């Protein structure tokens, strides 16, 4: 079953998109193309416009200028596109004390299609079963969501995004508050979905890990730079290439930092450079 008409080239396309709040330019003249089935990681420091980029794709924000096309269309003109996108918001946006179990939580992904005034159908329940099976959550189905571990909480978010069999999956920092072992199994799950030709775009902080899985990396810092997947993951050499001459990869704490010398005319990516880091790096 091919649900994609082939009269458009890219699943996501930004055509010289700018976005600004009254006193702050967030994205400037961004052009970006994501092919069908591509797995793209979006990285960049906090406040660089990653979330804005996602919100533009999801139609929650409208560009100040330029065009955002999803499956070749403007999502605000063609709301039916929404059904084909699975969205995984940041975990921190959910109140896990909410009185709902895993099964019903996953079902909320179908609420918009069921429509107001209607009860979920038998086939909506079937879709829940199928999705729980696919994500390995069957045994937890009647657990209240607050009683789950970090990795399991992340998995139910992905299950909810997958329930409509989307053609595209968009994730906002899916591995925050998930331990390394669980984030690895999360990326393995994404890889499986990638092999099923689902287009995946994920905002990430673990640039070191994500590089092994993705086709390309988009660096966001007001502007967007897309880099093909480096063969051996992200190394100092590739970073130097990406950021300019004086950059080096530096593991520090939980978030890998990129240390950039102040003098070099480069854009910063994935973690802010602080005085402290710089000194640390020199020593």
């Amino acid at each position, binding site marked *: 079953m091919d649900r994609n008409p082939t009269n458009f080239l890219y699943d996501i396309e930004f055509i010289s998109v700018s976005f600004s709040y009254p006193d702050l330019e967030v994205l400037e003249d961004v052009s970006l193309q994501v092919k069908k089935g591509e797995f793209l990681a979006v990285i960049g420091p906090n406040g660089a416009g990653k979330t804005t980029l996602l919100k533009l794709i999801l139609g929650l924000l409208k560009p100040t200028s330029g065009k955002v096309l999803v499956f070749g269309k403007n999502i605000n003109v063609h709301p039916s596109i929404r059904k084909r996108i699975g*969205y995984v918001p940041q975990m921190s946006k959910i109140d896990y004390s909410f*009185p709902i*179990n895993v099964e019903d*939580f996953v079902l909320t992904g179908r609420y918009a*299609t069921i429509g107001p005034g209607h009860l979920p159908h038998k086939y909506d329940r079937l879709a829940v079963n199928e999705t729980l099976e696919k994500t390995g959550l069957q045994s937890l189905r009647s657990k209240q969501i607050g009683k789950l571990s970090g990795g399991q909480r992340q998995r139910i978010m992905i299950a909810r995004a997958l329930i409509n069999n989307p053609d595209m999956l968009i994730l906002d920092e899916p591995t925050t508050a998930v331990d390394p072992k669980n984030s690895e199994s999360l990326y393995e799950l994404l890889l499986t979905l990638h092999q099923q030709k689902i287009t995946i775009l994920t905002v990430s902080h673990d640039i070191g890990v994500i590089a092994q899985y993705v086709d390309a990396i988009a660096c966001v810092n007001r502007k967007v730079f897309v880099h093909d997947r480096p063969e051996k993951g992200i190394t100092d050499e590739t970073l130097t290439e990406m950021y300019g001459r004086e950059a080096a990869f530096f593991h520090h704490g939980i978030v890998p930092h990129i240390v950039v010398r102040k003098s070099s005319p480069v854009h910063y990516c994935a973690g802010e450079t602080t005085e402290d880091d710089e000194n640390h790096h020199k020593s």
Partner: protein
Amino acid sequence: MQRALLAGILIGSLCAVIGVYVVLKGISFMGAGISHAAFGGVAIGFLLKIDPVLSSIIFCVASGLGIAYISKKSRIKEDTTIGIFFASTMALGILIFGLLKGVNVDLFGYLFGNILSVTLNDLYLALLVEGVVFFFVLYYYKELLLLVLDQEMAEVSGIPVSIIYYLLVSFISLTIVISIKVVGIVLVSALLIIPSAAALQITDNFKKALITAIVFGVASSGGGLILSYFLDTPSGATIVLVATTIFLVTSIFSSKKKR
């Protein structure tokens, strides 16, 4: 007494249902803000010589929507917006009552509730609001659930979040206005929050939480009214204290369950 009891049951169940959304969405302070706006609404009613219930409905719904709109569109945080509305509408009421020196108004009744002031029309109005709110909550059951659970997800999936939220705020305002005669401006937000918070302590299913909240709400208002009748205590305060007792019991129960 029969009329009072009926009003109590209607209001208790209504506040409980609306309260579940208020508590889960974390907008308890909005309830307090809107109820204090009712004081301004009542004063305007006396000033313009129209039914104070009608003027408070208009004034409270407008204040509720105003709070929701301003917090959405401007940079002012919601609790700041509410703080401003809270005090200024109350001040407006006090100012108007100050100007209307000659008018004999039962201010104490409006502030702390006076069950004897409930008229047959109030009862009909409560019944109407109850019907509309229950229809709203059932018709938009899924949409409201997702709105309080994960608003961004609701927006992304194409649910008309703004419209439903503004409707919810309007119904919060209506619920507050019709509850004022029984529990009073000062205590109405307690009736909105306490039975629902108690229900949420001991349930982990949304439907059960709604039903349990209704049971607690009706038990508080009904039980409180009967107690106040026999003990000859103020109705609003008695109702709120019964609700608080229920809350304390559920707290002990839920902390035992967790252990």
